């Protein structure tokens, strides 16, 4: 029988989250993880408010969405000055998206019109 069957697959193939030990590993790891996640969340809530509005718009309409939408929209308006980075990256990506070698037609519409 194989190692995986006898002792579990982690013993056989390892896990990507098991990294070689270091003293820093045990220095308040929960607080460190929580501050990291909280900082990333705060950063994204400032710079990516339109995603929250899109999420509210995608919810099944109801009492909750009626209450949430003005809050999300107001937050989007308040953070508009710092939303530029997202728009800038998206615009560059769209430009890359529109590049062509010739007159090829990618995408679903292209599938119907193709020769």
């Amino acid at each position, binding site marked *: 029988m194989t190692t995986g069957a006898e002792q579990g697959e982690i013993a056989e193939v390892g896990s990507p989250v098991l990294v070689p030990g*270091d003293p820093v590993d045990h220095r308040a790891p929960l607080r460190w*993880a929580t501050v990291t996640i909280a900082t*990333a969340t705060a950063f994204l809530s400032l710079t990516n408010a339109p995603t929250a509005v899109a999420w509210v718009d995608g919810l099944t309409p109801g009492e909750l969405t009626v209450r949430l939408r003005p809050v999300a929209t107001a937050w989007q308006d308040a953070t508009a000055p710092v939303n530029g*980075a997202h728009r800038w990256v998206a615009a560059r990506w769209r430009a890359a998206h529109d590049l062509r070698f010739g007159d090829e*037609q990618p995408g679903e519409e292209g599938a119907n019109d193709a020769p």
Partner: protein
Amino acid sequence: MQFPTFGFALFFLAVYIVTWALRGSNEWRKIALLMASWFFYGSWDGRFVALLFASAFVNWGLAQAIVRNDARTGRWLVVVGVVLNLAVLAGFKYTGFFLEQLAALLERWGMGRDVPLLEVFLPVGVSFFTFQAISYLVDVHRRRVPAAGLLDLSLLMSFFPHLVAGPIVRASDLLPQFRRVPRLTRGAVSAALLLILWGLLKKAVIASELAANLVDPAFHDPAHRSSFDLLIGAYGYAVQIYCDFSAYSDMAIGLAALLGYSFPRNFDQPYRARSLQDFWRRWHISLSSWLRDYLYIPLGGSRKGRARTYVNLFATMFLGGLWHGASWNFMLWGSLHGLWLGVERAAKRRWPAHWPAVPAFVGILVTFHIVVLGWIFFRAPGLDEALAYLAALGAGDWRNTLVTPLSLALVAFGLAIHAMPARGVQAIAVRVRQWPAPALGLALGALILVVDALRPAGVAPFIYYQF
């Protein structure tokens, strides 16, 4: 509720806060995780939660009976358990297909009858949790794992990171972790955050972009595409399915690690495999090792003679194909892999000792193209469509009507990442764990922002949700 969505991010933040707030009591922590997992699963369809609970309850009862009875009775109880689990899988997954085939057969024999064609709702992840339950019963019977309590077994089968698309985490990996409150390490957290970010990029950007603008149009109407379009489309699907499925595994492993649990590796740069056997040690490792341990080896493996080994290999891969779904295409896909594994084994056995070994790059190229050939059957909606794709691919029209610089670059990138050093995430995590938390949080936020800006509107479901 899908991983790369705003709704899931809110859900996960809530789970993270609650479960770590409850670290004083392992039992309450596990109850909270179980409730969260059922909420997550119920977001698809509330009825599925009842199925999941019923499955956990029955398997818990069988395991308790196995340990309380002698070996002979225990063996019969395992058989009953395997049959029950497979019946659930068959009922949801294969009934419609077999009735369809029966109706077609009766029609052909001039005995056309109104066979009731069922429109069966397939509960997401049913293939994953039934396989998990089967291996649990076998492992309890063979005394590899002790029988678990109802809470632990329910959580093992329902734990939301792996619930709908794997990895198939064995009881021997997860149950010991459930017995104590887990502890984080900075290294594991760093690797987890990197895996989640890497998974987001692969799914939301690479897989989604390739699906919408290269692969779907190529497979939609292959007869009206050039051979060049279809060749790059097939390579594109190889990259898409890798980026899609490995992204799910990466995110699942990362999310579980943030809650304190380790999952096994599920992908290991599969397109750098030098043989198909090597490929299956790198692709969906939790399924291939499951099939090896609970099907191939019990069938006799390579211990019962040459002919039987080939039959066992073929049967294992054929059933592996069938596991993906009831269709002729999946059966052909599995058969192709089973046949080629046999060819490889025969070639290895007959290879003259004085001949030089096959160069590594030849092995990689041949294996990759066998895999891509299989993917055409895997992706095409039906057998006729797959054959039409292959016919058009061989037509010899090398104009480009579909491939853009961006899609070509993404295909190249998706293949190039297989040439990167192995264990890259762990190597970066070793450095990242030294960073101050605010700096890491800002970097993480900025990179997620970039990924969000690159992704198309809306994210298609993961390919493996359908299995």
